[in-house]
């Protein structure tokens, strides 16, 4: 490490990461959460001098481990830095060294020792049908495990769409009656990080916020952190100008598709999906690394009722239409209301009225003349 002026404990904590890289990471974290740059220093302090690494218990239900996989991708912090230095990962079925009763003991011990303090992360949906027997962990229904652990947790994070509302297992016809964590642990504050898989930084930023400030970030009505799920994909999409100008790809591989036009007519769910994919992208390899960037419409994985629910290439409504890029003309073109038939009928009516009036006046005169001549 270059910087020899760092105090020993800090150098030890950083484990081969240069100071500059570390401060960069803290700054990026702060910015990705929409916090002021100064918060980076606070984050650095919280991470280098944690009062205690917060214990984390990670439970798996009906899932594919994709959400765990996604944590392999970020570089700041990397997975090993996260689980070895930042948090104390007491139980995680994919990463546990021990297994069987040994692992279950570690779980029970951690729950007992850290009651009210540990962070509970749930990955995967929770089946309720027939007492929850369609997902058993150590012989116990998963739903009971979540209820027991959730009751003692300091903070609960539901990672992935399955944990957030049921995700893929809850798709119709939902044979196991799968639900998400909020439906099982009702009345508790649950942070949901939906996505299939979710962006790892949305999860990491939430954890970092909790470690730094001792409280959760601002959440919306579905428990999603506002810094990540506050806006629609449509609002920050790089292809938005094409939408506004009415330039659409009509078929995969057509002229418009090759020119990067809007994918709305190919079934993009961006207009109804809240997520920050277009802003923070995936896998840190540069621009365009997200579904729409690669030329495929968004399928709405972060939005309940959209992902795994609406047909993949169906067209959505636009809940809040904004103006078209072209303005209205000075004189709007309207179909002429005067058809030939209508004009003919109107002329006939006018003619008849004039004729009748003339006749009436004439008669008035005639009757007078007659009267005069008879008297």
């Amino acid at each position, binding site marked *: 490490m270059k910087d020899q002026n760092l105090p020993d404990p800090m150098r030890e904590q950083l484990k081969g990461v240069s100071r500059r890289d570390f401060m960069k990471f803290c700054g990026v974290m702060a910015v990705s959460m929409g916090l002021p740059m100064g918060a980076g220093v606070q984050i650095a302090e919280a991470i280098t001098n944690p009062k205690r690494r917060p214990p984390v218990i990670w439970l798996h239900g009906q899932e594919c481990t994709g959400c765990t996989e996604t944590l392999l991708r970020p570089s700041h912090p990397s997975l090993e830095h996260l689980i070895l230095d930042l948090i104390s990962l007491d139980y995680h079925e994919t990463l546990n060294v021990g297994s069987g009763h040994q692992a279950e003991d570690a779980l029970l011990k951690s729950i007992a020792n850290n009651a009210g303090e540990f962070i509970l992360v749930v990955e995967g949906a929770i089946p309720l049908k027939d007492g929850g027997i369609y997902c058993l962990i150590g012989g116990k229904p998963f739903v009971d495990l979540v209820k027991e652990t959730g009751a003692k947790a300091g903070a609960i994070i539901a990672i992935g769409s399955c944990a957030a509302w049921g995700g893929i297992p809850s798709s119709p016809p939902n044979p196991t009656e799968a639900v998400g964590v909020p439906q099982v642990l009702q009345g508790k504050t649950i942070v949901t990080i939906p996505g299939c898989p979710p962006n790892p930084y949305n999860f990491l930023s939430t954890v970092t916020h909790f470690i730094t400030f001792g409280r959760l970030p601002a959440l919306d009505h579905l428990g999603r952190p506002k810094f990540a799920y506050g806006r629609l994909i449509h609002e920050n999409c790089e292809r938005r100008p094409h*939408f*506004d100008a009415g330039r659409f790809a009509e078929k995969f591989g057509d002229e418009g598709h090759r020119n990067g036009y809007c994918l*709305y007519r190919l079934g993009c769910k961006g207009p109804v999906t809240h997520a920050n994919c277009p802003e923070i992208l995936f896998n840190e390899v540069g621009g365009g690394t997200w579904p729409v960037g690669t030329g495929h419409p968004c399928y709405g994985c972060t939005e309940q009722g959209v992902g795994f629910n609406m047909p993949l290439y169906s*067209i959505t*409504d*636009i809940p809040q*239409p*904004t*103006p*078209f890029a*072209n*303005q*209205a*003309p*000075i*004189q*709007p073109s309207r179909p002429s209301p005067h058809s030939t038939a209508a004009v003919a009928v109107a002329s006939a009516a006018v003619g008849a009225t004039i004729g009748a009036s003339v006749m009436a*006046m004439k008669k*008035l*005169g005639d009757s*007078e003349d007659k*009267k005069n001549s008879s*008297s």
Partner: protein
Amino acid sequence: MKLKRRDFLKATAGSGLLMALAQPSKILAHSDKKALPPEAVGILYDSTLCIGCQACMVSCKKANDMPIDSSDVEKLWDNPQDLSAKTLNIIKRYSEGSGQNKDSETDGYAYVKRHCMHCLDPSCVSACPVSALRKDKQTGVVTYDKGACIGCRYCQVACPFNIPKFEWESTTPEIVKCQLCNHLLQQGEISACCSVCPTGASLFGPVDELLTEAKRRLNLKVGIYEQFPVNAFGKNFKSKYVERKVARYVQHIYGENEVGGSQVLMLAGVSFNKIGLPDLPEESFVRLADGIQYAIYKGMAYPMVVLGALIYMVRKGNDTKKKSE
């Protein structure tokens, strides 16, 4: 009595003659513009500054809780083609030839923002038989009271700018028109369209100060860079400024004198009838109508003549009857 053709025609001609003699224009000779209300506020719209972003339309819909007005089949955009019962404010685009040059009448384009002009002497207020439309005595805002409206739509016919719209699709229809965000003004805010305009094309402020600003702009040298106030202007506001190149203005302030003047003023780089603003006389239509009415009824002249004619006809009728007996 039987109405004789000859007498009927005589009476009609008499009335016409009286109206002709009254000569409304002469009676109106002393007429001048109605004075500005004491706290008259309005909008200065500068077409040369407008970039056509339509932020004002979005903001207007939000502030007034108006529905989407889609003219495309898929309903992808809020893209009204004209003012309607769902749209109080609209940006329209004049385009000619190649449509490349801003504020040019040939091969160019220009924007115009259409909404209520808040006339000093509004025809709609004059035409409204139940005072559903009123002009505020302090701010001069032309307001609409749906409780009083009887749905006669005289205001639609009376308005020279074609502003009031009727909710044809509703079972309990109302008249819809811009009220200068009166509900926001009462909270000390400014009209929603002006509060979001990024370039100062829609500028809110006291009408007299806006007029001064408009005159200043007409005298600016074309092509220099100049500071233009944004959002609001006047002694009550701390204005923000943006720097813009001065365009070639048409030397006329639309709304300064049109039909007696209005509280919404407009500047443009192309002639006003090109961007859909009608050529109108300086005299307000209300004055004209009032003049005719007052002239006819001056000294009860018209009723006297009509009464006289009636008496004459009745007497003649009686005479004829007696003779025939």
